[in-house]
């Protein structure tokens, strides 16, 4: 109900802001690297889009939790850099046996939890065992291959029943987070981790505040406080930034770049991301069970136009984005060709098709408008059904009652969904499932990636879905700020390195 007035307002504000920037005589923003004198007592305000429902990282789903809590508040034995490299964290070092069955970690000493208690090897064993053995915990299945977790002094050993090329990566995520054994903290509204920041307060519906952990085992955070303000509306965020309320905006709309850069205080940084704008096909349902129809839809869609309309990102033609292992440029599989699409539809006897696109209303209308127009060109009438997220989950995700659905899948390394016939993608190919299982069991990183690559090509050639774009991570950063990551920030936002100018 709110969408339409918001849109109208957005258009008007855009017009107004253009008018204003016209009046001020366009001070061209020079990207001069300003030397920053860091202020260790600074408070940094960062705008985020999606607020978590509660803070229980063990049980509650949602990228909003991973984004701020992992690395900043909670830590695992290993962590990942924005560039997706794995590095030691609570473990100072680690080793994997050549057969891929034994992982040995050396636990750091002198690590304190935020409540002052010391991190012990017992906490590590307990934490990992809990995740593995508690089915209701998120990502519990990711430790399924771990047979035993033992501690000998500061050495933690994980023994596997079979090799798992994804294990180390999984340990950088929720499955690997180390909590205090017997901790009574109410994890829904508070947190007790080992990270460079403590969770100071959560004002629901507004903001989450982190304070620097003065007893941090590693290099201490460079600002005293970080405030994450939750503000979904991009126009309101823009207005807030222009009025000086924020130091950085994540999830920014690249189309507003000129407006935010006009004052010279902000620069928009584009980083790579694993966001995949996925157009899912319900291939169990006629006429989408016909591969020719699916291919026709793919070839009817002008991906370049979508990327241009979004103002950022790149095209993507297969299930794996460039940041993930197994990526390959698959643009030749289904290039934009409306003529070929029409021919395919005629061949399949599927002319004058009418299909419904079900998507979460929060995604806006840019993508769906292009889809409607592109498909209309080849004789497909597309009805757009924009629904609330819970409705989407119910109809599309659980009941698989849909024709087409658009979802921005943000998770890194999530190829597993193409090997899972029960997933809402409805894609079932034993060859892909076999290749994926082999990739997991591989003890060699390059071989594992190559198997994924083969599987991904099959998925694309089966036209199991269409990939409309590989999103960019769009962050607007004020000139007084440095050290904010720009890669994949919708998934992880490590703020330990952020510095703010003393002005």
């Amino acid at each position: 109900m709110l969408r339409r007035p918001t849109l109208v307002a957005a258009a008007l504000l855009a017009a107004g802001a253009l008018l204003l920037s016209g009046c001020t005589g366009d001070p061209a923003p020079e990207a001069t690297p300003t030397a920053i004198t860091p202020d260790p007592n600074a408070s940094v305000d960062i705008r985020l889009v999606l607020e978590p429902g509660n803070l229980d990282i063990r049980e509650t789903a949602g990228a909003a939790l991973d984004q701020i809590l992992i690395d900043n508040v909670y830590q695992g034995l290993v962590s990942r850099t924005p560039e997706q490299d794995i590095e030691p964290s609570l473990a100072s070092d680690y080793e994997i046996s050549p057969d891929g069955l034994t992982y040995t970690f050396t636990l750091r000493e002198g690590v304190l939890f935020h409540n002052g208690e010391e991190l012990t090897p017992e906490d590590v064993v307990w934490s990992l065992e809990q995740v593995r053995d508690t089915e209701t915990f998120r990502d519990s299945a990711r430790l399924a291959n771990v047979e035993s977790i033992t501690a000998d002094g500061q050495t933690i050993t994980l023994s596997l029943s079979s090799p798992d090329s994804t294990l180390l990566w999984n340990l950088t995520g929720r499955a690997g987070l180390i909590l205090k054994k017997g901790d009574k903290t109410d994890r829904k509204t508070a947190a007790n981790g080992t990270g460079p920041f403590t969770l100071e307060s959560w004002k629901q519906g507004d903001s989450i505040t982190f304070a620097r952990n003065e007893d941090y085992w590693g290099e201490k955070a460079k600002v005293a406080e970080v405030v994450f303000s939750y503000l979904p509306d991009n126009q309101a965020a823009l207005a807030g930034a222009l009025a000086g309320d924020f130091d950085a905006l994540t999830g920014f709309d690249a189309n507003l770049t000129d407006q935010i850069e006009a004052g010279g205080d902000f620069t928009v940084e584009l980083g790579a991301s694993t966001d995949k704008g996925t157009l899912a096909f319900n291939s169990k349902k006629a006429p989408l069970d016909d591969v020719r129809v699916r291919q026709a839809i793919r070839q009817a869609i002008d991906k370049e136009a979508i990327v241009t309309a979004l103002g950022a990102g790149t095209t993507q033609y297969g299930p794996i984005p460039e940041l993930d292992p197994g990526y390959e440029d698959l643009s030749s599989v289904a290039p934009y060709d409306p003529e070929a699409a029409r021919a395919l539809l005629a061949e399949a006897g599927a002319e004058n098709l009418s299909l419904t696109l079900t998507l979460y209303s929060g995604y806006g209308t840019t993508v769906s408008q292009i889809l409607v127009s592109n498909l209309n060109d080849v004789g497909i009438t597309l009805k757009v059904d924009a629904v609330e997220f819970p409705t989407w989950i119910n109809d599309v995700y659980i009941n698989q009652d849909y024709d087409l659905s658009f979802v921005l899948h943000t998770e890194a390394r999530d190829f597993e969904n193409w090997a899972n016939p029960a997933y809402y993608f409805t894609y079932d190919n034993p060859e892909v499932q076999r290749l994926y299982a082999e990739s997991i069991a591989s003890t060699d990183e390059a071989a594992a990636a190559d198997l994924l690559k083969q599987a991904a090509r099959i998925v694309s050639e089966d036209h199991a879905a269409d990939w409309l774009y590989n999103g960019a991570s769009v962050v607007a950063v004020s000139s007084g700020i440095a050290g904010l990551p720009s890669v994949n920030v919708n998934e992880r936002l490590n703020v330990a390195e952020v510095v703010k100018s003393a002005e």
Partner: protein
Amino acid sequence: MIRYALTRLALLLLGLLVASALIFLTLRVLPGDVAQLIAGLNATPEQIEAIRDRLGLDAPLVVQYLQWIGGILTGDLGSSQLTGTPVIDELLQKAEVTIPLGLMALTVALLIALPFGVLSAVRRGRRDGTALNVGAQTIAAVPVVWAGMMLVIVFAVWLGWLPAQGFPREGWDDPARAFRSLLLPAVTIGVIEGAMLMRFVRSATLQAVGQDYVRTAAAKGLTRTRALLQHGLPNVGLSIITVLGLQVAGILVGAVVIEQLFGLPGIGRMLVADVGNRDLPKVQGELLVLTGFVLVVGFVVDLLHRVIDPRQREAE
């Protein structure tokens, strides 16, 4: 009078009961399941079932409803399924934004409606009176979101006088900052509500002008305006109280929109988020309190009417 008050009170309670049933049932029609939202995509059916079980979502609807009502009768409005926080605590916390916002909006509305409404009535038929009237009609038709955006552009982005969005984290510890952050949103709602109210004040005033006692006063040598101010306006005030009662609901609706727009952590924004999260016990509690608030305002207005206007008592 007492009999009237008691009847009216009984009606109020009945209204609340009906509202509670309606709120409960209509929310159950919404598709989607909080357990699934908590567990997220990729959750196994066992994970979801475990959460449903913990939250008691499998109990029959009648049982869930009776539990809810039973809780309210013992003073427990329920808790959030996501965070476990009591609904009443969150409502009180968010009320520190929404109630001042509503009062400020109401003040702005009255400051606009009363003088300009009377003025446009007194100056009826003249150019300035017509201009006022047309102006009010135009402003009343402006969408609240658009008005808010325009005010932000001018006063926050352009002039930099007021914050564009947000509420100070310290809340009312710093009253000046808190007040400043509510000013633009309150003016946005207030101006539009004020324009609507102004048209009402105008017609109520016009009606008063035509009354015998005003004409009599004028015949006794008072100017028409003086006669109106001294004898007509008390009666105008009476009918305005009624409209103000209705206005409260309008301001609450306006707050839902304006809190989104200005990023204010108030009741309206919380409600929208909770519906999106399918945190039904929380939404139920919030809606019931809001409904109760509007009903109580109506009740008080009715009673006031009786007290102030002797004609209504005589009619009994």
